[in-house]
């Protein structure tokens, strides 16, 4: 009931704000802690790399520390000793690296990638892109990944088996795994599963209450902004055209709800990320690439759905023809 009332308030409020928002600057728009949206509309976000400075004056970027503060209650407490994923000899464990803020881990759902492009430092906050048609959600064999009404993709940690398929099918390999926690320990700890998968959930619980994700409210530079997707998209496009810059996330993997704005091409940013990883021989998960124009691997799904609908019709038609033919043959034999 409270949610409904709150939503109604936002709905009314957004009517007045929407037109003004289109011409306002990103900075002025972030003055409120409430998300402006009409009911059931997709929420999007932009991350403006021209504004983000990686919180140079702080120990930890504010988006990262606020995310950790909010979500620390969900961080895994694995049962020790951890067991390898038989027949393999390894397991995924981040429990001894809980303080790491330089990559995605089960204890760190967002981080700021610092890269140097043409001699200039670029700070790239990274987290789940919240795809429009998320492969992780579609292909989770246990149906434990959901998308909220606002479009935030989140994992049900109580039922996750930690097979890490979501990470394998994610275009950016975002989810990270912690062994020694979760349902698999109660079912077949040696043979199946491997822990629980963790990633940014877009603060869907806050969004459901009409509140903004903590990374936005904590950002001192107003570089992150959530709002109605179309509004956010328009703002991002306007900003990109103003700076003669580039956008990332609108078309990647068939479309996501996260749009990056940059004055340097994302191809260059991606190259810099890969180069840095190579230089550090960093092969572990948690530092996603930024390849441009990633295909939507779920794009064939509509074709298969159509085939699934046609299959019964084909079967019924073939049966009718076969029965008709056999009856005809029988009547010939009788004659």
């Amino acid at each position, binding site marked *: 009931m409270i949610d409904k009332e709150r939503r109604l308030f936002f709905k009314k409020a957004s009517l007045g704000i929407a037109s003004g928002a289109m011409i306002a600057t990103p900075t002025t728009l972030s003055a409120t802690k409430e998300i402006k949206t009409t009911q059931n509309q997709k929420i999007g976000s932009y991350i403006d790399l021209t504004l983000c400075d990686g919180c140079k004056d702080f120990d930890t970027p504010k988006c990262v520390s606020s995310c950790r503060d909010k979500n620390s209650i969900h961080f895994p407490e694995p049962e020790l000793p951890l067991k390898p994923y038989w027949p393999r000899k390894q397991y995924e464990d981040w429990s001894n690296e809980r303080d790491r803020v330089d990559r995605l881990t089960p204890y760190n759902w967002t981080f700021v990638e610092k890269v140097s492009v043409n001699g200039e430092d670029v700070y790239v906050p990274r987290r789940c892109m919240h795809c*429009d048609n998320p492969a992780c959600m579609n292909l989770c064999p246990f149906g434990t990944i959901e998308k909220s009404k606002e479009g935030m993709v989140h994992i049900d940690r109580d039922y996750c088996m930690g097979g890490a398929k979501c990470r394998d099918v994610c275009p950016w390999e975002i989810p990270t795994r912690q062994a020694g926690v979760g349902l698999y320990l109660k079912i077949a700890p040696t043979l199946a599963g491997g822990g629980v998968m963790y990633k940014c959930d877009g603060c869907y619980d806050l969004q459901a209450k009409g509140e903004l994700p903590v990374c936005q409210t904590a950002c001192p530079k107003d570089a992150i902004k959530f709002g109605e997707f179309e509004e956010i998209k328009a703002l991002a496009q306007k900003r990109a055209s103003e700076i003669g810059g580039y956008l990332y996330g609108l078309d990647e993997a068939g479309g996501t709800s996260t749009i990056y704005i940059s004055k340097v091409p994302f191809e260059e940013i991606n190259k810099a990320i890969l180069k840095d990883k190579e230089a550090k021989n960093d092969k572990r998960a948690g530092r996603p690439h930024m390849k441009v124009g990633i295909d939507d691997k779920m794009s064939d799904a509509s074709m298969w759905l159509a085939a699934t609908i046609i299959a019964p019709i084909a079967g019924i038609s073939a049966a009718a023809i076969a029965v008709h033919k056999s009856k005809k043959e029988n009547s010939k034999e009788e004659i």
Partner: protein
Amino acid sequence: MKVKRQSLSNRIVHALTAISIFGLFFTGFGQMPVYKRYMLNEVPFMAWSADYYITLWWHYFFSIVLIAVGFYHLVYHFMRKEFDVLPKKGDVKESVEVIKAMVLGKEEPPSEKYLPEQRLGYAFIVFWIIVMVITGAIKTYKNVLGIEVDGIVMFAAAQIHNLGFFMLIIGVGGHLGAFLFKPNRQLLPAMLWGKICPCYTKNRHSKWEEGVKECEIIINKYGKEVCKEELIEEDKQSKHSKTK
């Protein structure tokens, strides 16, 4: 000379069902993240098995074959009013008697065209195929961009689909396990070539009117030489015990 037991249509349906179900088992296992963990992808020529998109498209392909064949089968037999394979009252009790007789090597109660446990097995497998098709269709539907399915429905569909997967493995395992019993092996050629031995038909399926009639015509015309030796012997013994 043998008795016709399965039409060409039934044999094609059975073959396509078997191929698609085994294909679905393999690709379905591939959707559970196991092939990479269990290193099947490291076996030569099997690297593709760990690619979820490849196994998914093949899973879709086999499911479409199964759905088409399933609808064909249901409509074909419904239109021809052929319901021999559907379970009948008392099948559970009779199945126990037949299995008991097979295990103890005693004489089985007479059967119709299908053995009672065959009818029960058929119903079990068909039921779970229907469950898999419905839950699989929900899963396919929600994969399309722009289609939102409630989280609880998705969770339930995924869990029931997984349960159905294991139930079908049990069903198919039971179906194949039936061939551990020697008498059942006589039925194998029926699904491959469509025909079975007349003496076997007379002995075991004596309540299958059409089959028995055809047997008598064949035996009267060609003599018992058309039967397998051991079945002639069984036929004699069966007659002997009946006269006693």
